[in-house]
């Protein structure tokens, strides 16, 4: 520890701290613009100049390491003089257009100028004007306001993983820009708005819609991926105006993914369902709640009375709250129906009943940074978990070795030490190779189920899987200097693997590998409350049907919670057909659109901003939130709708008067973290037998869910839909594949899966494994297709069959 003094205050600081760290710790405010605790030190704004004893020049507090005995003066005459002169320089070319600037009221330059600026300017010359840049639909630019602090440049390079902005030119002409005509495409791009200390980068959808002081700021939890980011929702006149991160170091730090930041636009979408609706003779009729609920209850009751309780299928979105999940499960069970499931995008349910506890990510979010060796299986990380990916990036920057087994070779924007890119079907074999190599390294005889053992017998370990095994064992690769003893290893399995028909085998392999190398890790669940839904058991009971079976063997009636069947289910064509043949579909939904054309009753529920509830994140954190606005029009929180529906159905035990009461019922009065701790467990009771008769050739579809199509809210966020990620689905394949199929880029093909087809354009994508066609899911154009990760055939077809795309599905129903 070093002993220093700041402004006469003696303090002890750690070796290697900078002056600004030390001052921040004791609450001595030093003004700054370029410095940010999460970014590299640039020391370019010079605002944090302070006086240090024995130095004849002021020193930048952000870049000066403290030394023992150092005496620092942040408010001395010399320090303040330096700070004031820097402020004067910063303002000479600043437009001072604060009255029309969106940053007004929350601007660092404005705030610090109040303290350090002069009342008038000595600068009488011409001011600099910088042309604005169009960097995409999410961020607007007013570059004349820029003070060249380069926080945005450093963020995209260091946190985002790719330099997309630069400071071009030099001297007074230096300006921040993206490459000629390019937009900023990072899935974390919105953070540069928060980082910008002036109004140069502002929120484009929010632009000019409110002044910061008119907004009420309310805390909430991000509703899309399983990270559980803390957000602050800004509300004006009962309308969500924008979303910002709330700092939570252990979860989202001070960042937010673009999906979490901009999805709110979907909350204000014109196709929000405002009143209950019933379909009469094929026409939608608005009605009141009482009528709608009685109609829905009557239909459900009639059908279950007539055909038995298992003629009902209940599908709930994993983006629903724990309370909603609890109630819908109670409701189904109350009717005697065991057909309940939240696993809409899963096809392999062989692990049901074999788990010891609730599957989760297997470690906490922060721990990822400390890992030495990482294996990621079947995940396009940046697409599935945009902000979590950044933690992995930090681990890799800290020296961790990352290995990837995936059907897609998308750049994770971090160094990949080893990778195997193969057909989804072959991932099992690759994992088998790693397992075999690891057991060879440890000279272990594995205690595996016979079929797994038999599989390993036939497997030949290739050099790349051998290298992966050695990496996971901590052995130094060709670039490494020393072997690691007992490295911290993390194994994670992602959404593509979760949707795969051989998920069970992959999971078993992962568990076996993890057992050998003492790894942490688990699944990276897709949605905000996947872990919570599993915890609550929103899954079939012993005699019930899982999500896939409910569609394969169609039910007479369906109850949908926050689900748009063709877009949210694993097998779009199957889902569509099942809904179409049902006698009655009751949908609790926030939106009315063609996506629910086969429903019979639409009950308007409140999205997360209009209801209270709880999500359990992928690390098992139980996070409750309150409504930030009143429900729109006639919308009601889903937990209330389910309560009244249950009451109307004549079921007992639904007398909750708040979501808090539901939560208490879930945790039975115990502390949630205690209950969670007891239940989270990725282990299997036994390793699962391998299915040996798997087809080993033929084309496979990689039906990735694009991140801005993942759930009903984000699908309706216009600015996110305008980003370059929103491309209409195409038949993407690598060059060799194209040659093999005798296709060229731009050809039109008919893609056929078991229950349907889609007409698509061929696109070159060398990130796709050989033997695979990558066709995005959750999109109107591909709702005719089947399994996300299933067999597919491709044949060339006539260009006339290819229709220009125009969204109709998400159009408002008249």
């Amino acid at each position, binding site marked *: 520890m070093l002993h220093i003094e700041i402004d006469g205050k003696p303090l002890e600081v750690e070796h290697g701290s900078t002056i600004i760290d030390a001052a921040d710790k004791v609450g001595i405010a030093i003004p700054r613009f370029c410095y940010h605790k999460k970014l590299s030190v640039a020391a370019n704004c*010079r605002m944090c100049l302070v006086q240090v004893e024995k130095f004849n020049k002021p020193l930048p507090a952000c870049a000066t390491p403290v030394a023992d005995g150092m005496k620092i003066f942040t408010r001395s005459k010399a320090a303040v003089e330096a700070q004031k002169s820097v402020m004067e320089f*910063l303002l000479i070319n600043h437009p001072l257009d604060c009255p029309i600037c969106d940053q007004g009221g929350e601007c660092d330059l404005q705030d610090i100028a109040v303290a350090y600026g002069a009342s008038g300017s000595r600068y009488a010359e011409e001011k600099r004007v910088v042309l604005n840049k169009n960097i995409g639909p999410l961020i607007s630019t007013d570059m004349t306001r820029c003070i060249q602090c380069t926080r945005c440049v450093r963020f995209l390079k260091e946190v985002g993983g790719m330099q997309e902005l630069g400071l071009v030119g030099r001297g007074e002409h230096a300006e921040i820009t993206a490459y000629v005509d390019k937009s900023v495409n990072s899935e974390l791009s919105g953070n540069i708005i928060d980082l910008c200390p002036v109004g140069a980068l502002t929120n484009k959808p929010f632009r000019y819609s409110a002044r910061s002081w008119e907004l009420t700021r309310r805390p909430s939890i991000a509703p899309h991926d399983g990270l559980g980011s803390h957000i602050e929702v800004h509300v004006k006149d009962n309308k969500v105006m924008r979303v910002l991160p709330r700092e939570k170091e252990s979860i989202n730090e001070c960042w937010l993914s673009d999906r979490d930041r901009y999805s709110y636009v979907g909350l204000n979408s014109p196709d929000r369902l405002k009143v209950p609706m019933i379909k009469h003779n094929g026409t939608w009729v608005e009605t009141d709640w009482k009528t709608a609920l009685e109609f829905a209850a009557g239909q459900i009751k009639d059908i279950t009375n007539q055909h038995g309780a298992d003629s009902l299928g209940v599908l709930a979105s994993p983006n629903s709250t724990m309370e909603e999940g609890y109630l819908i499960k109670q409701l189904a069970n109350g009717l005697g129906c065991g057909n309940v499931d939240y696993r809409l995008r899963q096809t392999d349910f062989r692990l049901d009943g074999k788990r010891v506890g609730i599957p989760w990510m297997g470690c906490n979010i922060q721990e990822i940074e400390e890992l030495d060796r990482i294996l990621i299986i079947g995940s396009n990380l940046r697409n599935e978990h945009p902000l979590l990916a950044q933690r992995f990036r930090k681990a890799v920057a800290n020296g961790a070795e990352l290995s990837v087994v995936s059907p897609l070779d998308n750049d994770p924007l971090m160094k990949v030490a080893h990778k195997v890119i193969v057909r989804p079907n072959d991932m099992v074999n690759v994992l088998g190779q790693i397992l075999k190599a690891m057991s060879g390294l440890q000279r272990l005889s594995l205690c595996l189920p016979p079929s797994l053992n038999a599989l390993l017998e036939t497997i030949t370990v290739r050099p790349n899987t051998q290298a992966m095994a050695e990496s996971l064992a901590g052995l130094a690769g060709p670039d490494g200097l020393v072997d690691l003893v007992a490295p911290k290893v993390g194994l994670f399995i992602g959404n593509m693997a979760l949707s795969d028909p051989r998920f069970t085998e992959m999971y078993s392999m992962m568990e076996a590998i993890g057992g050998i190398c003492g790894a942490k890790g688990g699944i990276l669940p897709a949605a905000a409350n996947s872990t919570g839904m599993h915890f609550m058991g929103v899954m079939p009971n012993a005699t019930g049907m899982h999500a896939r079976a409910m569609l394969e063997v169609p039910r007479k009636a369906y109850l949908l919670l926050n689900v748009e069947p063709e877009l949210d289910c694993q097998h779009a064509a199957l889902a569509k057909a099942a809904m179409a043949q049902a006698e009655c579909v009751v949908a609790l939904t926030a939106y009315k659109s063609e996506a629910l054309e086969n429903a019979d009753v639409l009950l308007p529920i409140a999205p997360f901003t209009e209801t209270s509830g709880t999500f359990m994140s992928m690390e098992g954190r139980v996070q409750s939130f309150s409504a930030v606005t009143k429900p729109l029009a006639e919308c009601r929180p889903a937990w209330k709708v389910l309560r009244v529906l249950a009451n109307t159905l004549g079921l007992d035990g639904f007398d909750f008067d708040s979501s808090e009461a539901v939560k208490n019922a879930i945790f039975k009065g115990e502390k949630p973290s205690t209950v969670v701790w007891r239940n989270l467990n990725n282990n299997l009771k036994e390793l699962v037998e391998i299915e040996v008769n798997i087809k080993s050739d033929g084309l496979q579809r990689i039906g990735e869910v694009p991140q801005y199509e993942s759930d009903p809210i984000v699908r309706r966020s216009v600015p996110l839909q305008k980003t370059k990620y929103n491309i209409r689905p195409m038949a993407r394949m690598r060059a060799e594949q194209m040659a093999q199929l005798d296709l060229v880029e731009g050809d039109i093909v008919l893609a056929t899966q078991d229950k349907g087809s889609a007409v698509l354009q061929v696109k070159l994508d060398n990130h796709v494994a050989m033997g695979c066609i990558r066709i995005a899911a959750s999109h109107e154009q591909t709702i005719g297709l089947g399994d996300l990760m299933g067999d597919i055939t491709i044949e060339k077809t006539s260009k006339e069959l290819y229709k220009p795309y125009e969204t109709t599905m998400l159009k408002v129903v008249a």
Partner: protein
Amino acid sequence: MVTGAKTSVNTTAKKPVMTDLKGQTLLTLRSLNEENPASLETYIKLGGYAQLKRIVTEKVKATDIITQIKTSNLRGRGGAGFPTGLKWSFMPRYYDGTKYLVCNTDEGEPGTFKDRDIIRYNPHQLIEGMAIAAYTLGARVGYNYIHGEIWQDYDIFEAALHEAKAAGYLGENLFGSNFSFDLYAVHGYGAYICGEETALIESIEGKKGQPRFKPPFPASYGVFGKPTNVNNTESYTSIPWILQHGGQAFADLGVPNSGGTKLFSISGHVEKPGNYEVKMGMPFADLLALAGGIWKGRQLKAVIPGGPSTAVMTAEMVQNATMDYDGLSKAGSSLGAGSMIVMDDTTCMVKTLKRLSYFFYEESCGQCTPCREGTGWVYRVISRIVDGKGKMEDLDLLTDVSNNISGRTICALGDAAATPVLSFIKHFRPEFEYYITHGKSMVDGR
């Protein structure tokens, strides 16, 4: 031979046109008396590479070499004048990885052009000096970063490198030892700031030449983040001579605190502009006489003794000064890189300052606030004065703004930009006041 390498460049550069060798003490330019000064043959004839061979084959201890350099009183010739021996002792002795050696031949400070003559007339002595430094400091790879505008000279130097490599003075296992050193020529392409050593390092790495904040210094975090020693061309080129004759002999050439000879670049209003290598401490008057005196029989008005980042001196201040670190410091300026810009009595100091402030405005890298914003402010105010729209309070404003730039930036360019403004106004204030009052120059009436 590597594909793309230059093989056809004629290394026999022409001899300098202007300067008179009489009265000079040729040490870093010792080949100048020869017919083909830049050729390897000439350099060998002059005893070249003998010191490198001796040191490597006799395994002379690095500490002994550093002691010689310290004794020699060699101070960095790039302008800062930091003792070279001391700098060398900062390099970590034991390091697990590649250490780098960098030579700064990025002369872009107005009036500075000495290193250009070394690389075009005596490249092998620089190469030998760098190889000796590499041996001493344990550097495996070296780069000579050459100003982009002197392209023909870059070609000459790169050809000399290939020549030296072919002859076994560079490359693997020199003279059968386990000492290996690869040296490469790299170039700037029009940025004065790259003469600053950390900007130069950034540029070698293929980035904008924006200086790094120090610490860490290059000795611990230099090229590609590795320990790196950076010296000026003239400094490295002095090394073989020092090791041949001993540090004391070099020190004895100069005056106390300034050892050896110095290359002075003399430009402006003299009869024979060019480079003059003389002993440290030569009286200003003698040096001016070597350059043929003030041209056209005019009178001396002012001298910038070490490039614009050193304070301008009036004729009176400079006439009795000696040309060495202490001598010029005593006279009210500094030696800098020895770039003497001479101005006669027809020179308008206001317009001259305008041009210099434009230079710093144009060359500011834009990284840190005071320099980026301040150099433009200063240039605009001076331009306004030259346009006849000056106000008397502008002079205090200029002084104040310059003081606010100085000492508050990442690198020394801020100080360099402030120096001419402060010294011109200080020493020639009446000329500025006249210009403001009359809207035209006191000197040329325009």
